């Protein structure tokens, strides 16, 4: 708790007062700080997810709660047909809830690589989001500049025997801890998917990547875009929020 507050303060500080070059020495810290900066201690947000395909496009409004690095709850607000469908992630386990049949289904390990709600995100992308912190070692490849700020190019390789999905990830993290892009490589180190930040705005009291886009490499007309319409960072959210009971009546 205390640590996170300090990190958030430091993050805020670095936004306002430029960057602390000292942190470059420890890449792991940059990644972790950035991750925490993005997720905050806890957050409540509303996101519009646009699934774009060459012949069609679909927009969903999703309400999301996150806590720490591991727990999250999403629930679909619109379109009305899907209203109330929810996904709960606790640790590395996932459950899905459908109001029409009033049932909770635990997503089995074999389904974790399937796409989430038909988007370009897989269940694993959601469930293993903290994997980058725990299962990878990071090294700096170089730096570039973006909007006059220094950007670290980071290569993340999985630790031996770590149960990872990706054979390599490449990150671009701006010195003010904003995530600019994340590239996912398979075990043959061939690029598979890319997530990039398209727009950075003030959200929830700090600079935040408002629009993200995930697409497969070589695909320009097939992508999933996340647009944050509201974001609020909280110091804590109750444990009961990340429970199956809460998933069932997720209509806060």
């Amino acid at each position, binding site marked *: 708790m205390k640590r996170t507050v300090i990190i958030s303060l430091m993050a805020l500080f670095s936004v306002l007062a430029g960057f602390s070059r000292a942190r470059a020495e420890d890449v792991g810290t940059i990644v972790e700080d950035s991750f925490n900066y993005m997720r905050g201690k806890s957050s409540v947000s509303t996101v519009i997810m646009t699934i774009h395909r060459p*012949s*069609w496009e679909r927009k969903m409004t999703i309400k999301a709660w996150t806590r720490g690095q591991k727990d999250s709850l999403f629930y679909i607000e619109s379109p009305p047909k899907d209203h109330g*469908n929810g996904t709960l992630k606790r640790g590395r386990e996932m459950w899905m809830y*459908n109001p029409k*049949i009033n*049932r909770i*289904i635990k*997503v*089995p390990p074999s389904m974790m690589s399937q796409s989430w709600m*038909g988007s370009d995100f897989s269940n694993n992308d959601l469930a293993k989001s903290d994997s980058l912190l725990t299962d990878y070692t990071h090294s700096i490849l170089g730096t570039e500049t973006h909007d006059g700020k220094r950007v670290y190019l980071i290569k993340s390789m999985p630790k031996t025997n770590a149960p990872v999905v990706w054979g390599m990830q490449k990150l671009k993290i701006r010195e003010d801890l904003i995530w600019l892009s994340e590239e996912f490589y398979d075990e043959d180190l061939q690029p598979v998917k890319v997530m990039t930040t398209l727009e950075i705005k003030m959200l929830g009291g700090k600079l935040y990547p408002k629009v993200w886009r995930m697409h497969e490499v070589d695909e320009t007309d097939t992508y999933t875009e996340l647009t944050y319409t509201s974001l609020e960072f909280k110091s804590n959210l109750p444990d009961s929020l990340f429970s199956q009971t809460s998933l069932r009546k997720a209509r806060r």
Partner: protein
Amino acid sequence: MSIDAKMAWRNIWRNTRRTILTISAIAFASLLLVFMLSFQFGSYETMINTSVKIHTGHLQIQAAEYREKRNIRYIVSDLNNIAAVLENIPQIASYTYRAQAFSLVSSAKRTYGAIVTGIDPAEEAGVSRLKSLVRQGAYLSGEDTDQALLGSLLARNLHVKIGDELTILGQGRDGSIAATVVKVKGIFKSGIDDFDRSFLQIPLKTFQDVYAMRGMVHEVVIVAHSLSDVGPIKRTIQKDLSSLSTHQRLVTLDWDELMPGLRQSIEMDLISGLIFYILLVLVVAFSILNTFLMAIFERTKEFGVLLAIGTTPGRLTKVLLIESMTMAAIGIAAGIIVGSLLTLYFQLHGFDISGASELLSQFGITGRIFPKLSWISATSGPTAVLIITFLAALYPALKVRKMKPVEAMRAN
């Protein structure tokens, strides 16, 4: 009959027992080849026909990208026009519509991913053996709505039995979330693990409601009266469909494209068969070579006399070749006739393979195999025997040419 032929004919029957043995070796090899080849071809046809009747059908009409991407959006609409085309093709035995989507299927205890397929219970029974594969419970009926059939392995994995509830959660055609609860009505077992582990059938109407399909489907599955009709049907459908003015591109796929593994296993079996045939023909060749060589050693003196009284070496070669080819011809003719009769008998009565059913069930073959006699199976093996006997006979026949009359007469 020329004098050479007459001599050859008499020479053949000088040692009756040896000649009969040689002829029977050739005849037996030919017979075996005719029967085995017919048997193989017949079993392939059985294999193809039984495999396609489990699920895929002889032919399918799909949207062009569907086979590769398996995306629920690649649909076949315009069903009325397609039905009109299919009704006009007499070689089609039956056809049905299917729609499918990969979804989460969960019971009270477990969740697995499965291919949820919407079927038309009545029409499906004419196309696939699904109805007869139901081992527990009952097949779907026309009035059923929230009922499901599932494979035995999937049922075991999910720990469900007849009457239990299953939750299906997937994605509809419009991207919305498709969810429904169904009751297990029947459990089927095809013997093909992949099929028994990953398929769940619900009525097509229910599928279309849940997955927002708006009356559309993914596959039109067609079964022909006979395997040989598949090619012509495919061409007719392709021609007729292209004249329909549909906005989407449809493709017609035959069993070979739908189940590439089947053709490969057939090819592998054919190759291992081929190795066996080559060995068989080689054994025959050596026995014939042996017979002819023996004959020449025995008759060295006789050849010496013949050469001494003025017979040309060429004529001797000719006589010897006539001898061997006559024997080969008799043997092969006998082999083809007996082999064909044997094959025809089994073609009518079938070959009981219940003892090997465990092994063959993975190819979808159960019960009886019917060999299939064709021009290829009746002639290709014997032709190989004829060629190899000729080559085997050539060596001794040419050896005679090098004989010196005096030395030959002093032999023994």
